[in-house]
């Protein structure tokens, strides 16, 4: 039986790799999807369910995350942007002319559900889909802001590191640590659907003709 299991293991492993190779959504084996990741620094839950009212635990987790975030950024030489800077860049007149660019580092579903108005999508896990569009834009921009969901999300960092590797200047890149969660908490406009769809989240006023016309509260 053990001999049989070994044969199945070897044949199955080989077939599984072939299936992955043939799948259009397969993982590229030779690619580092987590560039610059520091081992042991990202020990955190994807989702944890603190019971209602357990604010102490939640705050403790948030504090730990903030610390680990700063630690990671320092180790990777990335620039962390706070919400004031991000709002300022969003309202900057250069945003309309794409000298200031926002990149959403999340997947299709999250992007469609709501992103910063005018932000390009750059899901670095499927970089081949987006690089041709966003690389020229980033190379000509003065400032590039990259965000994902928020403090617990690393995708914005990985995207930033990939862009640096692709030739975008490190000094022009900002990673918005608060991400989409903080953006929404601040009641800033959220565009749904495709980029420049003009559709805002229900309850928000009609889409601004340019992001610079949008005023935060």
């Amino acid at each position, binding site marked *: 039986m053990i001999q049989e*299991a070994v044969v199945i293991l070897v044949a199955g492993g080989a077939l599984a*790799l072939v299936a992955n190779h043939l799948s259009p959504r397969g993982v590229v084996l030779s690619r*580092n*999807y987590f560039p610059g990741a520091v081992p042991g620094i*990202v020990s955190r839950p*994807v989702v944890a369910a603190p019971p209602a009212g357990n604010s102490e635990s939640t705050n403790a*987790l948030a504090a730990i995350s903030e610390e680990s975030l700063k630690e990671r950024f320092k180790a990777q030489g990335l620039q962390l942007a706070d919400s004031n800077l991000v709002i300022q860049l969003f309202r900057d007149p250069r945003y309309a002319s794409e000298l200031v660019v926002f990149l959403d580092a999340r997947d299709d579903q999250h992007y469609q559900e709501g992103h910063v108005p005018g932000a390009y999508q750059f899901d670095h896990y499927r970089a081949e889909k987006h690089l041709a569009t966003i690389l020229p834009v980033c190379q000509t921009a003065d400032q590039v802001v990259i965000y994902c969901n928020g403090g617990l999300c690393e995708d914005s960092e990985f995207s930033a590191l990939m862009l640096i590797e692709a030739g975008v200047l490190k000094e022009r890149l900002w990673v918005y640590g608060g991400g989409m969660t903080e953006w929404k908490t601040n009641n800033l406009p959220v565009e749904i659907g495709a980029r420049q769809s003009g559709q805002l989240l229900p309850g928000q006023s009609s889409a601004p003709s340019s992001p610079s016309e949008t005023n935060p509260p």
Partner: protein
Amino acid sequence: MSAESNRQNPEPGARGSDGMIRAASLPAGRWQSRVDVWSPGVRWLLGVAFIYMGLAKALDPVDFLKLVRQYEMIQHPYLLNALAASLPWFEVYCGLLLITGIGVRGSALLLGTMLVGFNLVLVKRALAIQAVLSLPFCAIKFDCGCGAGEVYICRKLAENLCLLVLAVWLVMSRNRRFCWRHSLFI
């Protein structure tokens, strides 16, 4: 298939190929025959479960890759990629082997071993989350990368234990009914 089935699964009390009367009346024999009676159903159940869980991961392997990384078992990116790329399809493959009845005991042994491993890493991760959040163990809920989204840890462990029982069942079973090739080497 039916000829092999009759040959390999004689009635209790019949004379076996070794010339010995089957000891159906003995408790151990009765237990074995009960295990054997249910084994086709167990085989299909376990096979379908693994095909479902494998496909759920294989359809979005990048998401699975991110979740596997959270366990911090493998630091090397290429090894991590290889695991995330192969594990979902390997589950589908083992599920198909079980359903068709090819190398049943070997497949079940592999799946059982994998389930033990899954449970160990699940417990390790849940304990790490518990240490941060100070929650009761069973209140820990996270996406374990098992193909079912976010789950409570105790429920997931119980599910895996049930699947493990089914896998052990098939390892113990000698029933070749509806099997294409129950054993690869006989």
